[in-house]
């Protein structure tokens, strides 16, 4: 069977709305899910901990930022701050609520809601101001959150070092560890949790994007006056975008701390991370959910691949400083090149490639 779109006709409008209209797509998705759930957890712990899990966490944050910036057109530099709220909320919910009532997935859900509410508070200025001026508010969110958790040691359970390791028992939820006889703190279990959360939230975002809410978001981005004239409440839409976006960032923060690094550490939620996620978004493509994942994979993997090239071909000629600087330069070049040539980012490049292949070899 070959992959082709011709000969696939939709016979009613409802079928036209399917996420995967082609039968072949559905098969690929099922195969992909099988690989993700059955093969990937059996790969090495290094692969999971150094590549897959962190990409899942930052990718989810990129999807969150995409909802706010790509879909609704509200610029934000507070991503890491909202992730920080998510990470600290997850930890404190697990710590302070008796084990019988709280489990990691539920804590992630609630920390997402907390982050969302914090996002709504810092999103309030968006009702009156637009564009670059809004950056100031989200920048304030970033610094305020950081200062807040830095000032009140209660949130870190009075840990003097400023970093608190997550106790193993926090990973064991719903008695799954005993039931399945696996180590819930191990990376395969953490990976499956992160993957499930990411898939569910990506599906949610995709549905939102192609429903009325998503259209309202985009209408506010494209022409807010026309949107209000059509009966869309612009303030409500903007605040909803802040809530949903920050929910995603909060959950991503929880995943980053719990599933990836295994401790709660303020230092990793500094402004640099907000910028990195913004780079992922721009390189991947504003407004495209799959683009967010592509951007996250590219930006996260580039330094790793670059180091690997240095180690294998140039006998370790690149030290960490070189890698970091080169990475930043490459991101910069990519962003500039994409902004000039293809503002839609990787997602648009992919769409163009698909279009070209469809026409190949007769491009007219």
């Amino acid at each position, binding site marked *: 069977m070959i992959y082709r779109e011709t000969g696939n006709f939709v016979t009613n*409008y*409802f079928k*036209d*709305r399917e996420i995967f209209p082609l039968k072949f797509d559905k098969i690929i998705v099922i195969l992909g899910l099988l690989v993700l759930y059955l093969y990937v957890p059996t790969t090495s712990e290094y692969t999971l901990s150094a590549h897959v899990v962190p990409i899942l966490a930052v990718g989810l944050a990129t999807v969150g930022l995409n909802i706010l910036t790509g879909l609704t057109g509200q610029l934000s530099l507070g991503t890491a701050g909202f992730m920080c709220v998510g990470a600290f909320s997850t930890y404190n919910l697990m710590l302070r609520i008796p084990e019988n009532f709280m489990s990691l997935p539920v804590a992630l859900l609630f920390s997402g809601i907390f982050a969302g509410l914090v996002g709504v508070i810092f999103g309030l200025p968006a009702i009156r101001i637009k564009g670059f001026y809004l950056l100031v508010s989200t920048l304030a969110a970033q610094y305020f959150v950081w200062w807040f958790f830095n000032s009140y040691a209660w949130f870190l359970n009075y840990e003097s070092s400023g970093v608190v390791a997550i106790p193993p028992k926090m990973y064991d939820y719903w008695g799954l560890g005993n039931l399945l006889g696996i180590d819930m703190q191990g990376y395969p279990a953490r990976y499956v949790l992160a993957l499930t959360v990411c898939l569910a939230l990506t599906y*949610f*975002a995709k*549905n*939102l994007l192609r*429903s*009325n*809410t*998503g*259209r*309202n978001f*985009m*209408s506010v*981005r*494209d*022409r807010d*006056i*026309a*949107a*209000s*004239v*059509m*009966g*869309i*409440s612009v303030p409500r839409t903007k605040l*909803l975008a802040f809530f*949903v976006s920050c929910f995603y960032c909060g959950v991503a923060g929880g995943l980053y701390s719990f599933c990836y690094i295994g401790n709660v550490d303020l230092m990793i939620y500094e402004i640099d991370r907000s910028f990195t996620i913004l780079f992922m978004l721009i390189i991947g493509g504003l*407004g495209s959910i799959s683009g967010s994942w592509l951007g996250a994979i590219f930006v996260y993997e580039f330094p790793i691949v670059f180091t690997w090239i240095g180690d294998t071909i140039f006998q370790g000629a690149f030290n960490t400083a070189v890698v970091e600087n080169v990475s930043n330069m490459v991101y910069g070049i990519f962003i500039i090149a994409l902004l000039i040539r293809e503002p839609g980012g990787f997602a648009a490049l992919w769409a163009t490639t698909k279009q070209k292949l469809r026409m190949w070899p007769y491009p007219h």
Partner: protein
Amino acid sequence: MSDILKVENVTLTFGGVKAITDISFNVKEGEICAVIGPNGAGKSSMLNVINGVYLPQIGTVTYDGVERRSINPRDAAIAGMARTFQNIALFQGMTVLENIMTGRNLFMKSSWLEQGLNIGRARTEEKVNRLAVEKVIKFLQIESIRKTPVSKLPYGLQKRVELGRALVAEPKILLLDEPMAGMNLEEKADMSCFILEINKEQGITTVMIEHDMGVVMDISDHVVVLDYGKKIGDGTPSEVMSNQDVIDAYLGVSH
């Protein structure tokens, strides 16, 4: 027939500039009312006052029996006003279908959670409203471009899509800001047909700003003439054509 829209003594100023001075006129239910006047006469400002984008300093707008000093654009939409803009205000990043679907947003009652999970009302609403949208797409004969991003469409078609977006909201009154500006003769004829059909078949009251006098005189039932923010003429097309003030405003007077 009763008046669906009554504009009474509206004055709108921007700082020291008087955009509209003490204008009153009525629009009867079911008619096509054309608002004409030279550039800068305050026609677009008038529409903006009617559907609440601008807040007039003095005066009231009575719509559907409710007298208001100002209305919020969203409430105006809920009350059944839809409009198009002079310099097309389509959502450029969206396709034709998405743009017109957005026009149905007031019919979508499901919450964002239902929509995100794609369950319950969200699924059926999307289907039911798509049918309404497809009717409008068919009416405007834009079936072949429904999946095209609007930014890639030529100007005339964009105007048509914008009309569709307003029409799909099933309004009681349609405010059209220069629906035929910049079009060639055929496109104007098409657009006139659409407007007449909307008005006569669907009974939607239409207030239209237009510069093409041929079109205005042909299709409108009632003409309001503005000049320098003041109303200088009001009546049937033939009355307005013979009004000396209107002739002076358009052709100039010798001093």
